[in-house]
Every structure is written in C-alpha cells, then in structure tokens.
C-alpha cells in the first residue's frame, strides 16, 4: 500500500491501473494461445515489469522477471522431456504460475502505488455508488493492516513453538486465522466508527484534494487493454 503523498513516480491513473489488472488477469488466464495471442500475451506480461521499472521498484521487477522466466522455461523445456505424474505436476505448476503471476504482480503494483485517497477519487470519477465505493475503499485500506496483524500473530506462533514441521499442519491455519479474524473485526469496527464520526457516508458529492486524471500514457495503456480484450473475445467466440 502506498502511504505517502509525496510527488510520486507513478505515471498512471488509478482507473488505468485497475483496468490493466483486470485485463491482464482475464486475458492471461482465460485466453488461448496461437495466432494474434502470441503477440498479446507477451505484451501483457511485460506491462507489470515495465511499470515496476518506471517506478523504481527494482527488487519487485527482478523477482517478477525471474519467477516468470522460470515458469516459462519450465513449460518450454521440462514438459516435453517428462512423462506421467511428473509431467502433470510440472504442467500444472508452471502453467498456473505463468498465467496467474502477471495478474498478481499487476494487482500488487496497483495496491502499492495507489493511496486510499486516490482510489476513492477514482471510484468517484467512475460514478460508482457509495454503497460500493465505501466498502471497496475500506477493503483497500485494510491490506496493510492485515499484513501487520499477520506478522504479529506469526511472532506469537513462533514463540509458542508452532512451526512448520511441528506436527499439526491443519491446526497451523486455524491458529493463524482465528486471532487474525478477531483482530480484523475489531479494527474494522473501530475504523468505521472513526470514519463515520468524520462524516463518511454523507449523501452529498464527496470532494477530493488529490489530483488524478487521464493522460497520454493512460490512453496508450487503455488502448492496449481494449485491443487485448477484443481479441480475447474474438478468440473465445468466433472460432467454434
């Protein structure tokens, strides 16, 4: 979650980022291969990498590139030379990974480079009703908090000697989730109370001091999205 409002290196409008995330996820997961898709897929895969680089997140960029290359190489070289169960496992792992990874990377870019305030402004501009925009922004606000709580609970588990290989893998999840849920509910309640006393949910047009807007880069990115989606649809419905 981006949390400072200093002039940032992000170039895209939150709406563009959301559209990109949706497009990348749906085209890569839902789309086939062959034909024009051989151009669109790599283009979309490169988008998160490019964005990470532009905003100076070199570490994320490197991790993403390495992980994707591994999955891709696995699919390319290991699949033809293995058989049976191994083959199945490699196809499943690498295939899934190569398809899901770019969408996840784009999602993390979205969350990491957008402030809550920008996110709310973007939804306001899209004329989403408050019934939808408020819960969504609360959810958006919640990611880093859940992360913090998760870390604290992890400490508690390590201290009690509940570690991987400690015998009860099924219980691990329960021990992690129960306190996490309890504290998230509590924080959520306090957060709502504090926001409501400051007028959230007033039935008037909400203003916003952060500046968002569609610029040339956004148009280019949106064009890429639209083209990809059109080809995805053609790919799905025309060739039956």
């Amino acid at each position, binding site marked *: *979650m*981006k*949390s*400072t*409002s*200093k002039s940032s290196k992000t170039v895209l409008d939150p709406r563009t980022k959301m559209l990109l995330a949706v497009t990348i996820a749906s085209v890569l997961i839902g789309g086939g291969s062959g034909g024009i898709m051989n151009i669109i897929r790599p283009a979309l895969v490169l988008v998160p990498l490019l964005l990470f680089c532009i905003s100076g997140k070199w570490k994320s960029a490197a991790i993403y590139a390495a992980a994707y290359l591994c999955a891709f190489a696995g699919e390319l070289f290991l699949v033809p030379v293995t058989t049976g169960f191994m083959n199945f496992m490699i196809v499943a792992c690498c295939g899934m990974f190569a398809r899901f990874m770019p969408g996840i990377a784009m999602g993390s870019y979205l969350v990491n480079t957008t*402030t*809550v*305030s920008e996110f709310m402004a973007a939804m306001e501009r899209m004329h989403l009703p408050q019934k939808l925009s408020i819960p969504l922004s609360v959810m958006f*606000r919640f990611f*880093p*908090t859940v992360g913090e*709580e998760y870390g*604290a*609970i992890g*400490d*508690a*588990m*390590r*201290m*009690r*000697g*509940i570690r991987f290989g400690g015998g009860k893998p099924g219980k691990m999840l*329960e*021990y992690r989730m*129960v*306190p996490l849920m*309890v*504290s998230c509910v*509590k*924080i959520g309640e*306090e*957060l*709502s*109370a*504090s*926001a*409501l*006393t*400051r*007028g*959230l*949910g*007033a*039935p*008037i*047009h*909400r*203003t*916003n*001091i*952060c500046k968002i807007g569609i610029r040339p880069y956004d148009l280019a990115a949106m064009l890429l999205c639209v083209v990809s989606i059109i080809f995805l649809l053609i790919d799905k419905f025309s060739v039956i």
Partner: protein
Amino acid sequence: MINLKDIQFFYTGASEASGLKQINLHIKRGETVLLCGESGCGKTTLTRLINGLIPHFYEGTLTGEVMICGKRISDTPLYDLAKTVGSVFQNPRSQFFNVDTTSELAFGCENLGMNEEEVLSRIDRTAEALSLNPLLGRSIFELSGGEKQKIACGSVGTLGPDIIVLDEPTSNLDILGINDLKSIISKWKIQGKTILIAEHRLYFMQGLADRVLYMKNGEIREEYTGVQFYEKPSSFFRERGLRISALAKLGKKKVCPVPEQKVLTVENLEFSYSKAKKLIDIPRVELPEAGIIAIIGHNGAGKTTFVRSLCGLLKKDKSILKYNESTLKARKRLDSCYMVMQDVNHQLFTESVLDEVLLSMKKEDRENAEKILDSLELLAFKDHHPMALSGGQKQRVAVAQALASGRDIIVFDEPTSGLDLRHMEKVAECIRQLRQQGKTVFIVTHDPELILSCCTHILHIKKGRAEGSYLLNEAGKKRMMDFFCL
C-alpha cells in the same frame, strides 16, 4: 451546549451492568470536563452518546434525551454531527482511514463535500495551529503513537467542531506523546471549544479540567471542580480506584530494593534495517537474574527491538544471552523466553483456556495445567473461550502459556496501557508472583506507577543505546522519576 436528560442505555446482548443509568448532565459552552472512574464504569459509553455513535452505530436500548447545540442526537444523522462534534479515540492504529497524513487531515472535509481550496486552507490553518507541519505528507506507518494521535486530533480539527470528545486518548502514548496531546487540548480550550475527555491517566489534565465527573456502575456518582479534585489527598484517589493525580506524588511511594546477586548479560546486540542507522546497538549490558526489570525510554528508542531480540524474534540477530550458566543464541531463545504481547489477542489460538495451556506444554499434563490456572485465578474459566474473557484475564492466560511452557524469562509489552488502578495492581501482583517463582521478568512500560509497584531494576534505552541500567532504590527512583517528569 450539551444536555443529557434521564438517560438510560444498555448495549444489545450485554448485561445491564455495562450500561448507563440515570444520567443527567449539562455541559456549558467552552467547558472542559474530565470523566473518570474504573474500567467498565460507563465513561466510554457516555462519550459515545455525545458523538452520536450511540444510537447510530452501537446498538442498544436508549431512553431519555441527548441534545447537542439544540439538535436531538437520535434524529441527527452522524454526518450532520460531524461538523459539531469531533472525536479522538483510544487506539491510534485503528482510527485512520487513509494511510498518508495529509489525506487524513482532508478526509472529514472531503466527506462533507467542501471544495478543494477550502479543504487545503483548512489543512493549512489546522497544521499551523496544532504544529503539525513536520508531519504532513508522511506515511502513518512511520509515525509513533504520539504522532498518530496528533494527526487524529488534526483530522478532527480541520472540521472545526465546537465540541471535542476524547476517549482515553493517552492509553498508548509515551510521556512525550502525552505532553503533545496536553498542549493540543490546551490550545482547543483557549479557542473556546467544549471538551469532554474520558481518561484513566489523570495527572496531565491538572489545570485543564474545569469539572471532573466520577462515574461508577453507569452513574455519575460525584462531581468536583477541577481545582477541588486535584487538591484531594492520595487516599481519595486510592479509594475510588483512580490513578495518581500528580506524578510528583509517586515520589512518596516506598521502594524496597532487593539485593541483586546473579547476573544475566546481553551481549553484542546490534540491529538495523538499513546500513545508515542502527536501531539498536548494545555491546553488553548486565541485568539481575530473577529480578523485575523495567525497560523505559521514549517511543522509537529501541525498547521493542530489545525485547524482540531477547525473545529470539528478530531476524539475523547475532546477540547472545548468558544466564544461569548457559549461553543462548537468538534461535534458542525462542524456547526460553516468552512475551506477553500488548495486544494479547494475537496469542490466543484455541477454543478454551485449558487448551491454551495444554498447547504450550511439551507434554500435555492436565493436572499441572489446572494448577497453573488456579495460581492465576483462571481455573473457574478453564472451559471458557479465551476471546470471551476480559482484557486482564486474557493477559493472565498468556502468562499461563509462558508458565506451562517452562520459560525462565517472561517479557511484558506495555501490560498496563489503558488500565485503571485496580487492574494495574493486579498485573503488578501477578508479576511479583512470577519473580517469587524464580522467573526473570522484563516489562516495557510507560507507566511509572506500575514500575514503583513491582519493579526492582531499570534499563533505560535511549536512541538504541543502553543509557542506564540501575537498581531501583531511592536513588534509582529519583533517576527514573526525572525521566518521567522530564
């Protein structure tokens, strides 16, 4: 300004004891009113009546009438009240809607649809008035508790409400944070705001509170002017279960120094996130084994890093702990130290109190587990769900976990934040018992009253270094009080 008539309130699904009975209260414009009383006396509930969270957010049965500036609260939606009543809450972590400070200051104004110039000029004015300029444009995750609470005050201030309600705002603050909050409250008082504050810490409101209300069992039992209240003798506060009214009074409290024989040493403790700045740098410090060691210092000094290292929770930690003729590296310490966390909910995993204790044992031993629970007055609750217990009971369940797992070193992280006198003394008693069982106890705390109730030794951490490590005798007490009184 504020008028409460024949109020009676009970939360839905809660026992009648937790509600309010027979509240009649009139607060004049510009008055500063302090609400005090033991935990569960109804202070927080009363503040919620005034900021409208009751009946609009928390459900329950309400009779009587609350009028604020001529408006009936039950007929006024929360967003209309936002301009009149501002609220600052207890937990600085959970009252920010945004994660950057400037947006947070703008938040209330944006919700009410003010235009951009108006919002920006209000932020400027508020930041100027409350000296928030150095905090603008920052991430809230980088701020200390005190700084967060200042931003919380600021985001209330931008809306310019006439009434400000604060619900235990100092619970999570250190001495610097409390001083900052005090100066904000006095600025508001000068601006003529009407202020209602519910608090356990009373000393910092001396000279600010015009009127003090003492509550018990959901009723306003006693009423004093600020001057009368702060002139009362210590026994007055003790009888009512209230915290000390002036830090200076703590000076009279006796300390009984204990001879320190065996020592425990921490060596080679060094930790940083980046190369530039070391979070903590303690080459060697000697502490008494089987003592109760208070770790004091300002927020961000490295207290938490110190105890996390002690418990083996820090990554890439090269430090060494020597005690009882054994030398422990970080990883080993996971099995010999135990921390009772500030938010104890993080360490309760199971469905019953007894299960919590059994889970911590290397070999499940029901009899011993029950013995441990008995020693902590928890046996009657052994089949209860840990999450259904009160805060103090949860804390003792965590202590029971530590005892069951046979740890020698037990760390408490801020065990008394937001506790009244009676609960604080219970914690102190529990800690003293641990020492009698031969445990070494570390307490990270901002609470001098707790320190004088049970500690034997002080470790003062300043900017990542061990500034002082001294026995809590008369001289030590003076040195400690100098830190807390600044």
